[in-house]
């Protein structure tokens, strides 16, 4: 017996009254029924969305065992497919990770290799720079080239460079943006002062750290320390700057013309400037003009004597010496020199007997304050020694070393360096002197002079080597590989400050004994070779 509704109209009514849940359950049942037919005909299983629709009613529908089996099989198949998909995805991820790792490794190797080559080139460049006498550049290049991953040859080269640098005694590199032209030590050698064509004066501590920068608007032409630790600077911007040593501007004195040089009086608040308008001006520290001295020709030099009793102005045709009394009064003392003057200076050691060295075209003479060739005492012998020698290019006097025994160092134009010591008496009990030593560098002499203590003579030449001669021992005490165009020394010969026409000044340590504690620390750093010389200034050099 079967049953049916009496009419389709009732069927519609019942369908409308039936709850959504009833309809959904009906749909779920139909889904499985139809799926079973499909499965039996074509072996097609239920899809995931069908299973999702069936799941909520699975317990409330009386499925046949075939239908239950179909649901189970479909579920298992879908789970297996999901596992396959997940495994495939995992496989792809693993494969991609592997390829990525290989790519990264190759990229890293390539980068490593490029970096290693770059470091080798830097080391070679450092070697070339060191051979060319530029140890600071060489040091920084070696520093940039250093890496724990360097191969043996690069490491050996860097070690070699550092060993040679260690021997070179280079201590610090003081950088400017233009050629360094002015060098000075501050009071008690606690400060380094450099002036440059970049228009700045820079103050550094003895560790080589920049402390202050003082600015002009044109190249700096002179720096000097006046009384009361005032720092004086002159520039082509036609001003004189007076500064405190902690970098404060005290006074800016405008001048009618660019200033070429300046000398500060050792005791009195006086400045002597040479200007481009051929005027030498004597000024006080307030900027007041005491007196100006017009010159007919180019000004070769304008300087105070070591004790400040005189000042000297030299031009090719005239030498002008003037005495200064304690209260600043001037006493005229002026003479003309017949022969063209190339250089004039005070004899550093001889305050009692003022002399002027005139190097003319025809010879070198030491003149007295009247402008006459000095024939008294051992100057007579000195004049005899150097007289009428047209080859003399530079003359330097030492301070008294030892007491009352002046030394003179002169450089011939044929690169012969000689120094001469005055002696009180010769065998015949006459005042005399003699040539102590002659050296003949293989290249042109770039700079020669006495050290701060006057114990050493430094000779630098185009060979890119500088030698320190111990005057007592009469031998070379040490050699430095460097170029020196200008050098100044600290008073006890601990440090030397040099320039070579490049954009830096270099500080060298000459004696390790007695060096301040921080220097020792730094020396240890230096000895560790690969540590930055000065951490604050660490920078990398790039090859061109």
């Amino acid at each position, binding site marked *: 017996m*079967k*049953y049916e*509704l009496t*009419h389709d109209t*009732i*069927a519609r009514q*019942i369908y409308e009254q*039936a709850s959504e849940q009833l309809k959904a359950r009906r749909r779920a049942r139909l889904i499985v029924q139809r799926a079973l037919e499909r499965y039996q005909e074509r072996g097609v299983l239920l899809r995931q969305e069908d299973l999702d629709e069936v799941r909520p009613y699975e317990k409330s529908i009386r499925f046949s065992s075939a239908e239950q089996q179909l649901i189970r099989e479909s579920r298992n198949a879908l789970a297996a497919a999901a596992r396959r998909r997940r495994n495939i995805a995992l496989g792809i991820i693993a494969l991609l990770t592997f390829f990525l790792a290989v790519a990264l490794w190759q990229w890293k190797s390539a980068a490593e290799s490029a970096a290693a080559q770059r470091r080798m080139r830097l080391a070679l460049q450092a070697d070339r720079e060191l051979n060319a006498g530029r140890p600071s550049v060489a040091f920084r290049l070696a520093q940039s080239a250093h890496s724990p991953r360097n191969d043996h040859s690069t490491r050996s080269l860097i070690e070699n460079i550092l060993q040679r640098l260690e021997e070179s005694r280079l201590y610090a590199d003081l950088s400017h943006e233009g050629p360094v032209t002015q060098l000075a030590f501050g009071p008690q050698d606690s400060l380094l002062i450099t002036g440059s064509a970049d228009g700045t004066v820079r103050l550094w501590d003895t560790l080589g750290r920049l402390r202050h920068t003082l600015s002009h608007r044109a190249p700096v032409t002179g720096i000097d320390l006046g009384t009361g630790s005032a720092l004086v600077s002159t520039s082509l911007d036609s001003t004189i700057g007076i500064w405190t040593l902690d970098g404060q501007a005290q006074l800016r004195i405008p001048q009618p013309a660019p200033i070429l040089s300046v000398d500060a009086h050792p005791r009195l608040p006086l400045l002597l400037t040479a200007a481009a308008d051929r005027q030498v001006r004597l000024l006080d520290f307030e900027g007041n003009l005491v007196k100006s001295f017009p010159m007919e020709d180019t000004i070769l030099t304008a300087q105070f004597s070591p004790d400040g009793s005189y000042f000297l102005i030299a031009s090719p045709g005239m030498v002008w010496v003037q005495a200064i009394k304690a209260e600043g009064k001037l006493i005229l003392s002026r003479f003309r020199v017949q022969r063209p003057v190339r250089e004039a200076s005070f004899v550093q050691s001889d305050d009692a007997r003022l002399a002027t060295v005139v190097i003319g075209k025809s010879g070198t003479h030491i003149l007295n304050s009247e402008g006459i060739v000095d024939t008294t005492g051992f100057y007579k012998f000195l004049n005899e020694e150097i007289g009428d020698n047209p080859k003399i290019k530079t003359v330097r006097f030492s301070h008294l070393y030892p007491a009352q025994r002046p030394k003179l160092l002169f450089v011939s134009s044929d690169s012969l360096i000689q120094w001469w010591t005055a002696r009180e008496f010769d065998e015949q009990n006459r005042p005399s002197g003699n040539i102590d030593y002659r050296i003949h560098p293989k290249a042109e002499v770039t700079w020669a002079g006495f050290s701060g203590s006057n114990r050493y003579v430094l000779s630098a030449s185009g060979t890119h080597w500088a030698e320190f001669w111990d005057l007592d021992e009469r031998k070379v005490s040490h050699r430095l590989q460097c170029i020196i165009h200008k050098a100044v020394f600290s008073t006890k010969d601990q440090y030397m400050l040099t320039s070579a026409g490049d954009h830096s000044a270099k500080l060298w340590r000459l004696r390790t004994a007695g060096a301040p504690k921080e220097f020792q620390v730094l020396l240890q750093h230096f000895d560790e070779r690969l540590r930055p010389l000065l951490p604050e200034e660490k920078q990398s050099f790039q090859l061109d």
Partner: protein
Amino acid sequence: MDSPFKFLDAYEQEDVEQFFGREKETGQLYNAVFSSNLTLLYGASGTGKTSLIRCGLADKFYDSDWLPLFIRRGQDLNRSLSRSIRQALERAAPEHFSRLSITEQVQQLYWDHYRPIYLIFDQFEELYVHGSAAEQETFYQTIARLLTSGLQAKVLIVIREEWIAYLDAFERMVPGLFENRLRIERMNDRNIFRVIGGTARYHGIPIEEPALTIRNIIDNLRDRNERVDLTNLQVYLDRLWRTDIEQNGRRAEKVALRPSLVRQVGKLDNVLALFLVEQMEQLEEKLRAREVSHPEGLPLEILFALVSEEQTKSTKALEEIRRALPEDRRLSEANLRFCLKELQRIKIIRPVE
């Protein structure tokens, strides 16, 4: 008290005394089946297609001229056809009967009765609601062969008009399908008037102020489209009858249709839906009395099992209905049978062979 009205059941030949309003259509159908071996009858749901054939058309024939086989799809239309033929045989079917083709089986049947055979496929849309493509194809071929066999067999296809488009494939196999067709229109007011008057008279229910009463009934039954559904009419008449008994305390033989009663029941938007809800509640009460726990919604779930996804009726056996109920609302077989019996009593379902 059971309702005297036909309710939603189709009219059978014996109901001809209470079958009103379709005299014209009955004549048209009678002419149509005579003019061709294949007739297509279609119309909207609730227009009385089945009643027209089972009652109107059947009554036109003498028994000697007419061997009607009413065939519903059941599980498979082709098998149902064969089974119907076998059951119609006077004598026991020969052994090889099942191996015969349908044409041969019809031939056998004809020889058995010597009467023209009318194969009437009612609710033909079921072939499309439930049938497979193969089942449809087989059926078309069978009909095509039968129609060209020269046998004394006529085919009448009865289908709801919204399914008519599905006949396309059938027409390709049987090109004359639409040549002899008849559409049953909705009944007009005049005929409805006659139906109400005739039905009341048939059941011995007097109508006071008939013109006004019937007019009011028709007005109360109009839907938004001003149409009157015949199924609703039967339900409405039942409601009037029951209201007079249950609320006004009249005895059944004293019930009379009158304007005041019509006003009392009033206009009902969906009288069938209301009827259903009420009947379901009553059935739930009865189930509760039979100590069924939580019977709420159970009758509706039973009925829902008899509705197809296409919102048409669906024939099901007791066990199928039981299986369609959710696991947690299992009814004992006795209770289910009780429900089905009750639903039968209120004429919502009927048993089918």
